[in-house]
């Protein structure tokens, strides 16, 4: 007898057809396309709050909004509003526009702007810099200038325990750490207090977070709001060398990534996949206490993908595969920069060079065609 397979649903994402199982979200379908063909990685909508290992996460940051040009084969009407791709399930015959729709890109740009107006931009002293999702998101979709002139929001510092450092000013309220505590620890002692832009992640009456899996909130945090106290100011992540390793642990799976500086293990994290998501959560013993190579069985260097951890020169725009119109967008923005300013930032120089090179290349190919 033949095995009964579930009926696959066919959707078109940015002009690429893909077949997925029922119940798949648009985001997962896009990731499937990118996993099959790595050069399509830029098609995947960014996710600041959605985290696949944490069910019910998503829908909050609105970074992944896409346009559904046709709801399904049965009902081909477009959806009236942009929908969050991380929680919207696909229908057979759905047509989704992500990078091919200017309205989606404009909205995404405004989401970067919204997230950054109260973010401190202290990347030079932030331990998350280099593996920060907001940094990537802002680099890929944001504008060079801010239109926000007001004072940024700040919070009183609170201490949430010996392992985890909380910087509330950097938080973008993705709720991932709340779901982590809900789903993998016995009792959640932190949550979101207050309302609106005064909301903050906090423990009730500044209680310390103390359980064996509390360290995982560091891994799920997309920004530098929750960082590792044992790694604080030790090094920039791009100077460290990740190695996969494991050990026999009675609390967790023991599969981790060790981050080396020379021969010294300066931090231990859970392993992450292409999308920056933890594959297996690890316990605090592995994370904070086992910092000698002798504690571990090494498996070899971690494969670094562009989208998971910073690789050398990641932020050079000319090395990032971009659709043509993104370059055009960058070109128009560059022209708007105030030239009377006495300095030029590195990014601008690089972008300028990249645009020039691109123009030259276009020019050459045009000349070749004419001849």
């Amino acid at each position: 007898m033949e095995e009964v397979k579930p009926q696959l649903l066919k959707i078109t994402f940015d002009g690429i057809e893909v077949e997925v199982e029922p119940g798949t979200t648009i985001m997962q379908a896009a990731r499937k396309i990118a996993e099959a063909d790595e050069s399509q990685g830029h098609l995947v909508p960014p996710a600041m709050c959605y985290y696949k290992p944490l069910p019910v996460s998503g829908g909050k940051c609105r970074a992944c909004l896409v346009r559904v040009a046709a709801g399904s084969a049965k009902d081909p009407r477009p959806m009236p509003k942009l929908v969050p791709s991380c929680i919207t399930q696909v229908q057979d015959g759905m047509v989704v526009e992500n990078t091919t729709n200017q309205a989606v890109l404009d909205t995404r740009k405004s989401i970067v702007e919204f997230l950054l107006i109260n973010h401190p931009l202290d990347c030079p002293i932030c331990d998350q810099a280099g593996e920060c999702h907001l940094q990537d998101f802002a680099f890929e979709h944001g504008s060079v200038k801010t239109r926000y002139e007001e004072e940024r929001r700040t919070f009183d510092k609170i201490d949430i325990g010996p392992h985890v450092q909380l910087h509330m000013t950097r938080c973008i309220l993705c709720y991932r750490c709340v779901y982590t505590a809900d789903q993998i620890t016995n009792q959640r002692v932190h949550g979101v207090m207050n309302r609106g832009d005064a909301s903050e992640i906090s423990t009730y009456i500044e209680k310390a977070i103390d359980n064996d899996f509390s360290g995982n909130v560091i891994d799920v945090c997309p920004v530098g709001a929750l960082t590792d106290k044992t790694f604080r100011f030790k090094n920039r992540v791009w100077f460290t060398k990740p190695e996969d390793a494991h050990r026999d642990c009675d609390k967790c799976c023991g599969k981790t990534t060790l981050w080396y500086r020379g021969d010294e293990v300066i931090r231990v994290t859970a392993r992450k996949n292409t999308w920056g998501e933890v594959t297996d959560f690890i316990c605090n013993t592995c994370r904070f206490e086992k910092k000698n190579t002798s504690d571990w069985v090494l498996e070899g260097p971690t494969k670094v993908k562009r989208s998971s951890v910073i690789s050398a020169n990641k932020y050079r725009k000319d090395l990032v595969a971009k659709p043509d119109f993104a370059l055009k967008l960058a070109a128009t923005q560059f022209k708007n920069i105030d030239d009377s300013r006495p300095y030029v930032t590195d990014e601008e120089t690089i972008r300028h060079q990249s645009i020039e090179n691109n123009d030259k290349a276009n020019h050459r190919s045009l000349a070749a065609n004419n001849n």
Partner: protein
Amino acid sequence: MARKILTEHINVPGIETFDVYRKQGGYTAVEKAIKTMTPEEVVEEAKKSGVRGRGGAGFPMGMKWGFLAKPEGVPRYLVCNADESEPGTFKDHHLMKCIPHLLIEGMIISSFALGANKSFIYVRGELMYVIRILEKAIAEAKAQGFLGKNILGSGYDLELVVQPGGGAYICGEETALLESLEGKRGNPRNKPPFPAVKGLYQSPTVVNNVESISNMPWIINNGGDAYATIGIGRSTGTKLISASGHIQKPGVYEIELGVSVDEFLNSDEYCGGVRKGHYLKALVAGGSSVPILPANLITKTAAGEDRLMTYESLSDGGFATGTMLGSGGFIVFDETACIVRNTWNFSRFYHHESCGQCSPCREGTGWMEKVLHRIEHGHGSMHDIDLLVDISKKIEGNTICPLGDAAAWPVASAIRHFRDEFVWHITHPQEATQPGAVYMGEMVLG
């Protein structure tokens, strides 16, 4: 005199007690529905009546009931949304305070129609005294056998619970209300799933406004068809309007949908006109979240037709020249009102009430408020006006719940219709920041 459905007996002394309410024909609809009708017939009457949700969205109530999923073995819930907290809207408060049994009668009929055995009235937490009035009325109805086990010997059980709200405007959004009712933080849920499929405690749930439910006794007594004859077109029945601002007689009025805005504003039966010696400048027709209209677009639509108090007529012309009936908060401004200050005030409210869950609303409402604050206090610059328009556009439609839209619309519409006043605030900061200063430029006065 216009027909009254909800407020017919509201001035009868002692109407808040069971005996007086019963003498005025109260609870006859419950008897009729439970003894002589099936739940499906009650739903059918609601559909025929064409009564639309009175909370603001105006979605037909009968159709909403029709969407309720009915899986076997899963309880269904009816939740009455009495978390009325929109600035300018105070009709439900008035109704519950004066004639609590009307809501309770409506709740019994509606719960019966939906097959709910436990129903909730989620009352705004600030209205503690109204909660006590409702609880007293529920106890009276229970003592008379209209609530509790085996109502009127029919075998139908209903428990009615009054829940004080969590003290937030956002808890008036139906999914945030359900979260709050479950004892959680009042954050709106992502939709779908809609409450009709997965609502309170993951069970199918209908959430209706106080006024919508209070229409049910009349609809059962007189029939849905009779209800549908009142009003114009798809705007059937009567509507409570909370009139406030610079008018002669502020208060709650029940109107037949289809009364002209001009009549409502100027006749002695209703608002009695703008206060003496002053002129109409602007009007918010449906509570603070709907677009504001200037005097020249209030009584006539852009096409020159009379504007009526109906869902369709008020939204004639889209947002370019129209507005919405919303929840019926009718706020009138005369020429002494400063639109910039008023917009800032509304914006401050939405900034304060944003739940902080999704980024456009959390960050955008605060940003708009700060920019408006700057303009109002004489520190604005010309690009701030376009910045405000751009922020409002980026919030609108991109949020989880309609609070983002509600925050964006008043700002966008104020700039659309009163841009010169914003410009004046920026170009004349000295004059604009004087106490009581108002722009009197080339204003069109009504």
